[in-house]
């Protein structure tokens, strides 16, 4: 296999640099309008004149269901300008998502029972009910059929199944027809631009884009460029609906085209790099490279995997790519990815096979399916085309059960045993309420917010006439992310040490201090905060963290959903929403103030390493490895390492060993930034000094300049806590 970095000729170098510069310009305009935001770039184009409206059939204005949404999407896609960029190998971009203009909502009558909603109001979870997307497409379905074939497939199964209500098919067909019309418009726009273009290379490119899109209106892709263009079409439509962001295992997806066309001499490596860079310019959908084949016999690394890394490196904008690591992963690929991360500051993240695959097998599925689960979201994995896992949209904030347990202890028995018993009770209440919400989600989602785009690229929905949330796909295991683990563990450990063990303060003093949000009790706050915290080797807090994890997993796994018996897969991922989930949460015994953020996923809080043991990446990694939920869903480790510490081959060797070791210690995902302190501090002081600094926030990457102040602070805190 050729593993050498692809060298670009001046033409392709110019094109990719042009894409980078265009992205910077687009981002600048977006920031001028929106200020900062806390998601990734998503690839959209800002147009101040874009507007759209759609009339609901309902009195309350809600638009819902396949038929109405199909019609709304038809109008919305028609309203979206045809975007063509002469630096790109592909056409198309999204400008807005329909939900900003059309209230695609669940009807009030489809909400869960009052009791469930009241439980959510009490415990503040993100209940996952109404959650969108978070399943991954099998793009090969589209490659085989094209847009025209997808329409024919829908028509065929509408006739074959002959359902009483044909809304599923009618709405979906309208969406596909609108997409075809948009693809035709892209072709027309490219033809028009070609006519006016004077540069011969750009003119030729625009003509190729035009012809390619004209073909793709009805027909399936014939070669790699057309397959990538089709993928960009999907990305764009996916975003327009509910900002869907999952893609596929892309090295394998495009490898057959690569092998066939390079053998025929019709494709060069630098063309591939440009096509892939154009796809990344189009959107930041999540995808994966490398990993094991389903039977576990072979590493999937190919020349395509290397070219994907080259495209990321040359383009140097936020891109969400995971590299699936296993013991036999191509070492050159792994090292190349790290070299690029050290050069660029961020790059791929590392999805780790042992925890992901063997953990998934504990759900009762064959490990072969676990290997097919690609990392296609911030933290999450799914089998493209086959699974509806609904990860990353449901969070049970464990700090609220702790709060209510403390209230119970205040009113009742003041003992650690009683506090723990009440904590478990409240945790189970919130988890059970989410399960009930999931039952309702399964019953009603299709008639409110169907997965009208994803269904097309899944195995089953079209054939059955069922939304993929409704039994359209074979595999359905719904995730609940427990968050706040460290906040709770450090809190209980502090109570155990300071009140129960040492007797330095009383329960009453703690309750008074918490009620006062620590005001006037700074000494007590610091006493509670500065215990041996989770992350310190063999700390009491670590034992609590494991106990809390075990109980949470038990609460999820002990029973399936009560009505429809859907299995629950426990996850533990906070996303970057630690401020949101700390909002309104009263002070906690770990020294945290009211409204302060909670902990990140299952990570120790910054500053955990004190005394003899100073911070090290391995100390943090070991802690995160110990508290994984264990059923295949990822709970990430964030490492922000000073690249000055990792210069040279020894630095790469160390990172390779760190990644493999974390895999063997139970870890599931590593998000890595390699920055110098100087760069980060300059950017923090004045983000405009480094407008193209890309950082990995959590599972996604973003321009540092685009992040809100709170999110920028998270990156800086993580980095500085290690200094």
């Amino acid at each position, binding site marked *: 296999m050729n593993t050498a970095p692809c060298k670009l000729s001046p033409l392709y170098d110019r094109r990719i640099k042009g894409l980078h510069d265009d992205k910077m310009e687009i981002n600048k305009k977006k920031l001028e309008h929106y200020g900062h935001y806390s998601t990734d770039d998503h690839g959209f184009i800002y147009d101040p004149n874009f507007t759209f409206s759609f009339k609901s059939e309902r009195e309350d204005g809600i638009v819902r269901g396949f038929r109405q949404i199909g019609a709304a999407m038809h109008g919305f896609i028609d309203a979206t300008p045809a975007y063509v960029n002469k630096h790109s190998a592909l056409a198309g971009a999204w400008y807005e998502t329909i939900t900003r203009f059309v209230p695609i909502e669940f009807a009030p009558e489809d909400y869960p029972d009052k009791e469930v909603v009241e439980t959510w109001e009490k415990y503040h979870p993100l209940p996952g009910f109404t959650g969108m997307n978070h399943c991954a497409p099998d793009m090969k379905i589209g490659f085989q059929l094209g847009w025209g074939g997808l329409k024919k497939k829908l028509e065929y199964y509408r006739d074959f199944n002959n359902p009483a209500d044909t809304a599923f098919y009618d709405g979906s067909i309208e969406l596909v027809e609108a997409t075809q019309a948009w693809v035709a418009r892209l072709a027309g726009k490219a033809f028009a631009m070609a006519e006016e273009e004077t540069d011969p290379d750009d003119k030729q490119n625009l003509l190729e884009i035009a012809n390619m899109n004209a073909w793709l209106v009805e027909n399936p892709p014939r070669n790699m460029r057309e397959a990538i263009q089709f993928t960009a079409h999907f990305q764009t439509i996916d975003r327009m609906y509910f900002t869907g962001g999952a893609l596929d295992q892309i090295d394998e997806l495009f490898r057959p085209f690569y092998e066939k066309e390079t053998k025929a001499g019709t494709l060069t490596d630098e063309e591939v790099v440009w096509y892939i860079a154009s796809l990344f310019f189009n959107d930041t959908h999540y995808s994966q490279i490398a990993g094991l084949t389903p039977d576990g016999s072979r590493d999937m690394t190919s020349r395509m995997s290397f070219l994907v890394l080259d495209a990321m490196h040359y383009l140097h904008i936020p891109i969400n790519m995971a590299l699936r690591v296993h013991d036999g992963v191509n070492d050159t690929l792994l090292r190349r990815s790290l070299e690029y991360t050290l050069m660029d500051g961020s790059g791929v993240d590392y999805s780790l096979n042992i925890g992901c695959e063997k953990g998934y097998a504990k759900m009762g599925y064959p490990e072969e399916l676990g290997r097919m689960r690609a990392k296609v979201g911030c933290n999450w994995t799914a089998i493209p085309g086959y699974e509806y896992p609904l990860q990353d949209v449901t969070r049970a904030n464990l700090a609220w059960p702790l709060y209510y347990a403390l209230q119970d202890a205040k009113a009742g028995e003041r003992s650690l045993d009683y506090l723990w018993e009440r904590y478990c009770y409240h945790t189970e209440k919130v988890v059970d309420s989410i399960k009930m919400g999931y039952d309702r989600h399964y019953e009603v989602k299709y008639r409110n917010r169907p997965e009208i785009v994803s269904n097309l690229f899944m195995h089953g929905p079209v054939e059955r006439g069922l939304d993929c949330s409704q039994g359209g796909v074979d595999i359905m295991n719904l995730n609940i992310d427990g968050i706040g683990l460290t906040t709770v563990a450090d809190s209980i450990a502090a109570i155990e040490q300071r009140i129960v063990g040492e007797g330095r303060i009383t329960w009453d003093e703690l309750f008074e201090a918490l009620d006062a949000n620590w005001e006037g009790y700074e*000494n007590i706050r*610091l006493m509670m905060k500065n215990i041996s915290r989770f992350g310190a080797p*063999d700390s009491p807090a670590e034992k609590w963290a494991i106990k809390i994890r075990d109980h949470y997993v038990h609460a999820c796994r002990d029973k399936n959903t009560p009505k429809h018996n859907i299995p629950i897969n426990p996850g533990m991922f906070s996303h970057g929403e630690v401020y949101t989930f700390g909002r309104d949460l009263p002070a906690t015994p770990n020294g945290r103030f009211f409204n302060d953020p909670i902990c990140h996923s299952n990570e120790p809080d910054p500053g955990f390493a004190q005394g*003899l043991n100073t911070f*090290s990446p391995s100390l943090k990694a*070991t802690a995160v490895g110990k508290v994984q939920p264990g059923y295949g869903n990822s709970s990430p480790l964030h490492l922000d390492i000073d690249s000055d510490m990792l210069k040279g081959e020894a630095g790469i060797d160390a990172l390779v*060993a*760190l990644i493999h070791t974390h895999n*063997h210690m139970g870890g599931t995902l590593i998000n890595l930034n390699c920055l110098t302190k100087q760069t980060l501090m300059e950017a923090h002081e004045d983000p405009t000094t480094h407008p193209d600094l890309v950082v990995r926030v959590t599972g996604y990457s973003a321009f540092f300049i685009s992040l809100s102040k709170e999110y920028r602070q998270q990156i800086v805190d993580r980095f500085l806590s290690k200094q």
Partner: protein
Amino acid sequence: MAVIGRVFNIQRFSTHDGPGIRTTVFFKGCNLHCKWCHNPESISMKPQLELNTDLCIGCGACFHACPFHMIDESGAHIIDRYKCTGCGKCTDTCYAKALTPVGKDTDTDELMKDILTDKMYFDLSNGGVTFSGGECMIQPDFLSELVAQCRKEGVHTAVDTAGNVPWSYFEKVDADMYLYDLKAVDPTLHKKLVGVDNKLILENLKRLSDAGKRMWIRIPYVPDCNDGEIPAMAEFLRGITAEKIELLPYHRLGEGKYDSLGIERGDAIRTPTDEELDRAVEYFNAHGVNVIRQ
């Protein structure tokens, strides 16, 4: 049987203290006194107090806990460091972590538990543990027991030493490899810079080399201190066999520690320029000694 020793820091994921990923254990106490020492907390064998005034909330708990009443009415900490026994009573009450102890007595069994938590990192990177300091060789019983236990557990050991100990200590410790500091060759200059003659140091280095011990030699480059020694060092090192010889540029990261430990700093030392370092490396290489910059 477990042996007790005194350490002040355990740093995991070290990538510059020997091959692979290493856990570096810093022993407390040193028998040299280098003018440029960036670990001043390592010099004294006694437990010490580190004070970070930025963290102090002025609660006065340390005043009440300490028999020497080291806080005056204005709230400024006045520590009688000569009388301080390192009993830890003040640090135990300082929840703000403004006062922290430096130096902890630990035994070999306890320390081995800490070391072994990163064994998988060692195994996957051909790394191990590095004993550093201070001067770890001045606690030979503690050190040799740790090396023996590591060997039993299959953990590679490196000893980072300045070599100012009897040769019998090297025989007793018998680490897998040595990171050996060479600060100066001229004995008078050596004494001026670090407080002791270097006869024993150079002899031990030669004996390790003759014994075929795996060794990395590390030369601190300290402007206006030992930079004039490069030719003499090159001549000496031509007779030494080492796997690697590194030039370590002096840095000022340890300067803040002097204030927090209440230790008077000597004259400020500047950091070397890239040109100076490159010139030194070029000289070594031109005179038959392969030296690299760390």
